[in-house]
């Protein structure tokens, strides 16, 4: 197990380094003088010189990269040029909010996606299977920002049941928090549930055609035991992998969902940063989201290893 982990880490490290190079290079895409872009049209030559000095734009690229990556490794993502606030602590304050939304959305995805996918596989080719297949395809095709707007229209504007926007921490007011997170979690969770349904159905269909499932039925096992114990437990490996990777993407911040519902998470931070020309914050979020995905991929590998007895016994 430790050898396997080390092997996966050795693959993850160069990937993380390349991500950092890509993210650093984003700055080179800025048209014209980056100091002018950061300072804006009203910046004086003295201010521009200060920006160039502060951000190290006068140094060669490799030196700029080295300064940037060493600072990032120390948790220093730079300082907001507008507010003079440090980006690292700003980012840290957003993480629990996005984490809360990601967990709630993941919960919705799992409770809808897995049972619906299992039932579609059991009743393959029948009514429910068609319902699940069409719902899943529609779920993938609906832009979640439009779904969000429609839900606000129905549940906030017309019915007045849920708040249209804003976020309340569960540690401040659990009931208000539940109300504030419900719509964003459903919007985000349904898109994930659609993918989860398709994946679960496909994994279950593969497993249900295996000999051991036929044997279990031939032995007279009850159908629900065959489905849950023999089929689902063996189909869980690809499902766990998908769920972990979905969570990795969610941690990057559900940019549009947070924007629509005014949730102060990482996704909203990146959009605000774009419009405030806080390019260092854009880089910080992009880097963090890439790193989160790599770490979740690593976790997916570990869970895959843990959930697959064949793989475990080979290594032990």
């Amino acid at each position, binding site marked *: 197990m430790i050898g396997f982990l080390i092997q996966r880490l050795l693959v993850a490290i160069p990937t993380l380094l390349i991500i950092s190079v890509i993210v650093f290079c984003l700055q080179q895409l800025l048209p014209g003088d980056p100091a002018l872009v950061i300072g804006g049209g009203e910046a004086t030559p003295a201010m521009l010189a200060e920006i160039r000095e502060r951000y190290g734009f006068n140094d060669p690229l490799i030196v700029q990269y080295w300064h940037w990556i060493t600072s990032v490794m120390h948790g220093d993502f730079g300082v907001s040029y507008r507010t003079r606030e440090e980006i690292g602590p700003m980012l840290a304050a957003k993480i629990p909010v996005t984490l809360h939304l990601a967990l709630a959305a993941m919960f919705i995805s799992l409770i809808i996606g897995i049972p619906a996918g299992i039932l579609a596989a059991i009743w393959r080719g029948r009514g429910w299977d068609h319902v699940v297949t069409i719902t899943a395809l529609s779920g993938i*095709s609906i832009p979640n920002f439009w779904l969000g*707007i429609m839900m606000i229209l129905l549940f906030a504007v017309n019915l007045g049941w849920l708040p249209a926007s804003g976020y309340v921490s569960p540690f401040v007011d659990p009931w208000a928090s539940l109300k504030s997170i419900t719509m964003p979690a459903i919007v985000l969770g349904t898109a994930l549930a659609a993918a989860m349904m398709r994946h679960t159905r496909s994994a279950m269909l593969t497993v249900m055609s295996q000999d051991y499932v036929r044997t279990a039925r031939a032995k007279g096992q009850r159908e629900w035991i065959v489905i849950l114990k023999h089929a689902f437990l063996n189909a869980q490996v690809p499902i766990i992998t998908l769920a972990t990777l979905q969570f990795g993407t969610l941690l990057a911040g559900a*940019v*549009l969902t947070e924007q*629509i519902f005014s949730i102060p998470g990482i996704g909203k931070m990146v959009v605000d940063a774009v419009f405030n020309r806080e390019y260092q914050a854009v880089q910080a*979020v992009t880097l963090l989201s890439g790193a989160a*995905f790599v770490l979740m*991929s690593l976790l997916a590998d570990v869970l895959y290893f843990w959930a697959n007895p064949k793989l475990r016994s080979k290594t032990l």
Partner: protein
Amino acid sequence: MVRRFTRNRAAVFGLAIVALFVVIAIVAPLISPFDPIKTNWGLVRKAPSAAHWFGTDELGRDVLSRVLYGARASLYAGVVSVVIAFAIGVPIGIISGFAGGVLDVVVMRVVDAFLAIPFLILAIALAAFLGPSLTNAMIAIGVSTAPVFARLARGQTLIIKVEEYIEAARSMGVRPSTILTKYIFANALPPLLVQSTLAIATAIIAEAALAFLGLGQQPPDASWGSMLNSARSSLGLAPWMAIYPGIAIFLTVLGFNLLGDGLHDALDPKA
């Protein structure tokens, strides 16, 4: 293959939706009842009526005309983004897979790094650094999608390059560039076309998302994403401003997804 495709009713339905929106995009100037960018202060936020089937927006513009013209921006952005992704990703994937060795390892690490950054975050970051415009949005979406094509093209190349006809071509002294283009690319094309169809669906949503955030098509030109953005502030007063562009995005994306799934099943009946 054509028979397998036409037997799949969902795929034919998808093709019909896509064809409908392509026709709408082409003939938008002929069928639009009004000028999509002409404002009319006497018709601000009017509900759907016989004159304005989809109502009017916050500047008195006809929503139906803007939805029809919006098809142009969305389909154009979807197709061009995927062409960019294809043009970048496929040569990289094929050359990397064909060459193998250190080049393949290095290129695939870079591709993996791009794939690790969530698609929309990368597209937003690229669009932000390049500047807000439809062209830059298409470049951002294209570059963000390219790694998917590189991975797929490489995978196909690894399968094809060990085939006997490639061995035969090599032993006959056919130049590697000819093997890459005439043999490997030609045989890898079907799955890449399926991926392209599905990628157009993703690109249309991404363009709408960037336009929604103000990073795509700029006002006053019509785009489904920017229409949804302006509808947000008038949700209680004029819900029709949000309903119709959203349905248009949904139907177009659904069409491309059904078409892509149908093509996939037709090309690979075992799947």
